[in-house]
């Protein structure tokens, strides 16, 4: 008899516990209802990135003058600039440029020091922090 009552007591305890967990869950979902939606309805609304936002680095091949400043300012000399001197036009000709974004820490030093960025209008920046669209 006592054994049975103990079992009933344990079962009741478990039930109360379960009810409390359900109550906790309900309070979480109820609380979420008053929060603002995180949706950005893209074509109508756009996220404005903050001033110091650093996105993916955007590189324009045609504008690069192969000065290798970006390699020097990079903390780990990451950008690979492969160029060849063109004797006729007496200019460096860029053959290949790459940054391994698996290693890049997005410090944006290269963007800051890039002479094209500095000398030209923001629209024509060679390195431009791209706005990540999420």
């Amino acid at each position, binding site marked *: 008899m006592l054994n049975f009552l103990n079992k009933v007591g344990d079962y009741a305890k478990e039930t109360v516990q379960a009810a409390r967990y359900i109550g906790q869950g309900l309070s979480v979902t109820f609380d979420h*209802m008053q*929060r603002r*939606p995180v949706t950005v309805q893209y074509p109508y609304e756009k996220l404005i990135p903050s001033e110091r936002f650093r996105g993916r680095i955007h590189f324009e091949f045609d504008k690069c003058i192969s000065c290798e400043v970006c390699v020097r300012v990079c903390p780990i000399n990451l950008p690979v600039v492969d160029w060849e001197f063109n004797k006729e036009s007496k200019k460096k000709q860029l053959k290949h440029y790459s940054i391994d974004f698996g290693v890049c820490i997005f410090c944006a030093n290269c963007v800051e020091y890039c002479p094209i960025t500095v000398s030209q209008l923001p629209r024509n920046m060679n390195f431009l922090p791209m706005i990540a669209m999420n």
Partner: protein
Amino acid sequence: MNPGIDLQESFIETLIDLGLPVGAAKAIWMPLPMTVIIIGATLGVLVSVWLERKISAAVQQRIGPEYAGPLGVLQAVADGLKLVFKEDIVPAKADPWLFTIGPVIVVLPAFLSYLIVPFGQNLLISNVGIGIFLWIALSSVAPIGLLMAGYASNNKYSLLGGLRAAAQSISYEIPLALAVLAIVMMSNSLSTIDIVEQQSGYGILGWNVWRQPIGLVLFWICALAECERLPFDLPEAEEELVAGYQTEYSGMRFGLFYVASYVNLVLSSVLAAVLYFGGWDFPIPLDLVSSWLGVSETNPTFQVVTASLGITATLLKAYFFVFVAILLRWTLPRVRIDQLLDLGWKFLLPVGLVNLLLTAGLKLAFPFAFGG
């Protein structure tokens, strides 16, 4: 207790005064409340679909439907129209007759149960003596339709879904009936009108929630299982069974299942409000209000106000339960089929019996508070 407005009586009397025989007058009256209730039930479905989508969106911090009408209120109408115009496919190897009858059998009892939903003293289609029992009986017809649909689709997922629906409905019918029985024991009547009458008089304090808290929880869990709402939506568990018995359905036949599930949800919510939250009873007793204002209870304006307040109160209470159901949907994960049956047979059934016993004991001990 003052009876309030009786539309039926006055309507029939007016017709008789116009020179119509009594039978014809009654026959003219009969389709009116039915149409009103069917339209009301359909509107209730549209509203609850919209609420479901909006509240779900809010819980998940989304926006939800927005472009169909202001705040997306017309989204449900748009979806319904789309379903009407979709091609109606009957699978080649399905049994066309059972396949067609299945959804109809699911929808009909849901709408038929509105027969006993009271919105006021005389504001219901018919005050049947067996009232609430009629609802329980009708709601056990639906699983036959589900089983039929599942079996006729000639699809293993459909069949499994149909079988699960039948098992679930049958096993949750019993604790549901026990929860209702405790209420019936207290009000000495199966009629929904009498059940509300017994709760009214003391405003919010007289409602059955205070006397039947266990019963309310029991009723609500079983009602969710009967409606196949989310913690118990095993028959259509999309991760396991594609869509259960609805797998092969498209167009308006699917629409019928969809409508039936929401009609059932609203119906269960209204009945929860009627059984436990005092139906049309206002939180403050209206007799008191009338005496404060110095208005006679038989004043026609006062009666119209009372009736509309009653309807509003019923709907508000019902939609509170709809809201709880939607919130529960996003709170609780789906139970497994064995957990479902365990919960039904090993927990809800004994608790229901104990609740019934307790109610009987309390009724004997305190007849004034528990309806002697």
